[in-house]
């Protein structure tokens, strides 16, 4: 077989895969239409404003409702310095024994 | 032998780096005529202008002044496209350094001149294999060229020069890198091609070449000028 034919075949194959992925995308999205309707229902029932993607800090859990970023706001001992605070967990403070524990 | 004039140069001059301090007059006012079927040798020391003259005849570069006629047609002022077309249809080139493309097989190297044409690759391959067969190279056709011996490389370049079935074959110092046996073999191939009716032009200063008795035109050059023309009809 000619080298150009191999190239065209491989390229066509990749384009076919892309078309298949596109079809997958359409089917998947149309399957989710009802899910989004239901989710929208939950959101409006509970009057939610934010996604539960990042539960580490207040501004991350409810970015649209947050105050400005302030120190010691959320996770105990987590000194917030946005955006690092959402990537790096706070250090283990237990050993330092500065955590105030209520019995 | 027919007496049709296949190549004619009229006051052809080539100046490199014109009007600069390093100006070189490579070819100076050369007027020659070559008949179809001639076996021509351009003889002269290096720097005498024979290679430049050969490349002008082969439509690789244009003369600074004067004209060159190939098959009666003035080619010295054609646009690049048409020069390339004449070069591709009329000439076969054999270079001193072989100039084969490394990493590519013998057969592909031979096919290369006709790639940018509408020929079917299967047809082109058949043609290349036929030529290689005639040159005794069929056993080497799928070899990468860099693994060939000097003589085999020479025969590959001959095959490449023949792929377009040219009327005229130009060879620049073809025996410079060959020993006596291989040089003799090369010349006998050229002789055979001449007998098939092709016109052969060789630039050389190798006595082995220009002392052959079947050479019927020796053009001796020095300092860009024709010093002597010896016709042996």
């Amino acid at each position, binding site marked *: 077989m000619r080298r150009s034919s191999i190239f065209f075949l491989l390229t066509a194959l*990749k384009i076919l895969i892309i078309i298949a992925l596109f079809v997958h995308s359409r089917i998947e999205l149309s399957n989710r239409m009802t899910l989004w309707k239901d989710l929208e229902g939950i959101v409006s029932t509970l009057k*939610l404003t934010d996604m*539960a*993607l990042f539960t580490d800090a207040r501004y991350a859990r409810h970015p649209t409702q947050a105050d400005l970023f302030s120190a010691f706001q*959320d996770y105990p001992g987590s000194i917030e310095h946005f955006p690092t605070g959402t990537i790096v967990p706070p250090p283990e403070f237990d050993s330092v024994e500065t955590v105030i524990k209520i019995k | 032998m027919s007496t049709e004039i296949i190549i004619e140069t009229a006051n052809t001059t080539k100046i490199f780096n014109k009007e600069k301090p390093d100006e070189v007059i490579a070819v100076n006012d050369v007027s020659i005529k070559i008949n179809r079927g001639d076996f021509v040798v351009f003889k002269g020391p290096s720097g005498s202008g024979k290679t430049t003259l*050969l490349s002008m005849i082969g439509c690789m570069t244009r003369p600074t002044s004067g004209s060159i006629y190939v098959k009666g047609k003035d080619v010295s002022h054609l646009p690049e496209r048409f020069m390339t077309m004449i070069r591709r249809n009329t000439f076969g080139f054999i*270079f001193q350094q072989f100039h084969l493309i490394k990493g590519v097989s013998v057969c592909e190297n031979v096919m290369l001149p006709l790639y*940018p044409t509408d020929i079917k690759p299967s047809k082109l391959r058949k043609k290349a294999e036929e030529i290689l067969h005639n040159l005794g190279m069929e056993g080497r056709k799928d070899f990468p060229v860099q693994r060939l011996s000097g003589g085999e490389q020479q025969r590959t370049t001959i095959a490449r020069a023949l792929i377009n079935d040219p009327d005229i074959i130009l060879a620049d110092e073809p025996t410079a890198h060959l020993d006596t046996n291989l040089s003799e073999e090369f010349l006998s191939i050229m002789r055979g091609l001449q007998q098939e009716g092709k016109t052969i032009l060789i630039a050389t200063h190798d006595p082995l070449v220009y002392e052959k008795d079947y050479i019927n035109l020796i053009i001796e050059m020095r300092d860009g000028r024709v010093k002597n023309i010896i016709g042996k009809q």
Partner: protein
Amino acid sequence: MGIEKHRNILDYTLLSLLRRKFKNIGIILVFTFVIFIVGSILFLSYSFKREAYLILKGSPEIVVHRMMAGRHELTLLSYMKDIIEIPGVSKVEPRYWGYYYDSMTKANYTILSMGETVMKTSRLLKGRLPEINEKNSAAIGKGVARARFIDIGNVFSLQSADGSQMVFNIVGIFETDSELMTADLIVLSESDFKRLVKMPEGMATDLAIYVYNETEALTVARKIRERFPDSRPILRDEIIRTYDAVFGWRSGLVLTLFIGALAAFIILAWDKATGLSAEEKQEIGILKAIGWETSDILEMKFWEGLVISLTSFLPGIILAYLHVFFFGASLFAPALKGWSVIYPEYRLAPFINFYQVATLMAITVIPYIASTIIPSWKASITEPDIVMRG
């Protein structure tokens, strides 16, 4: 001239590329990787943005906070009767919500009650939501259930503001499909919520405002701000915009991590663009000498650029799609999700933005082809007799 000539030139181009197998495979790998990374980021952030847009359509059109000394304060319920008077406002409801830090699991939960809205059942809720004044019952998100190892029918306790433990029966759990919105929720009845956080009567966390005509939301917000200078109205449009920005900077963050690969690719392309090797120059000379035209050489270089860039771009995009939508962008997860105790489980919706993909193609494939052709331009227009001389 027929098509055969172009295929012949392509044939030779491919043969020529195969000669420098390792170099070219190297370029293709780096190129594919770059497309894969950038493509993944584009797919991911676009999918999040679209999904945020679709789901947050259900949010209240305006949320009104009260501010005191620049901090978020509880809102007075008495604001409500003034706000409902504003033309265009259809409904005003209080929202009760906040955070609960669970020292046992070191997780932050979101606690809320539903106000006065009549409870609806949903496919996404196993069980039910607590009634308005129902005592000691809660519906929780899957993430909370996982963190505390509890299920429907179990009980769990939260520490109230006065230090006492309040026990709750779990009457409902949100299904996995809704985790993107509900993973960390604890939904309580209004009275329980107020008891838990000791919220004074006549107060709410903030107010949800609904308007008849969405295009008037901005006007209504301005009027609320005029009437109550200490209020902070947040529009639903702003909420959705915030999500665009959040996914924007998180994408940028991921991109920064792969800046090395990007730099390597640019250096490679630069290396190609700034010059041909002596070998390549000589090859062009040979091809010209044996009868190739300038345009044939440039066509060969065009094919070379196209073959390399297409052979990289298409698999790169395919891999990016698989990575994001079949494997949940597992490579980026650490940077995207950040750290926390409760991670929602979700499958990304395969939204494709053709404009983005086309742009990505335009800014990678075309410059690559150009960087292949341009340096060979000079070599290909010189007269072929240099090979005779050299």
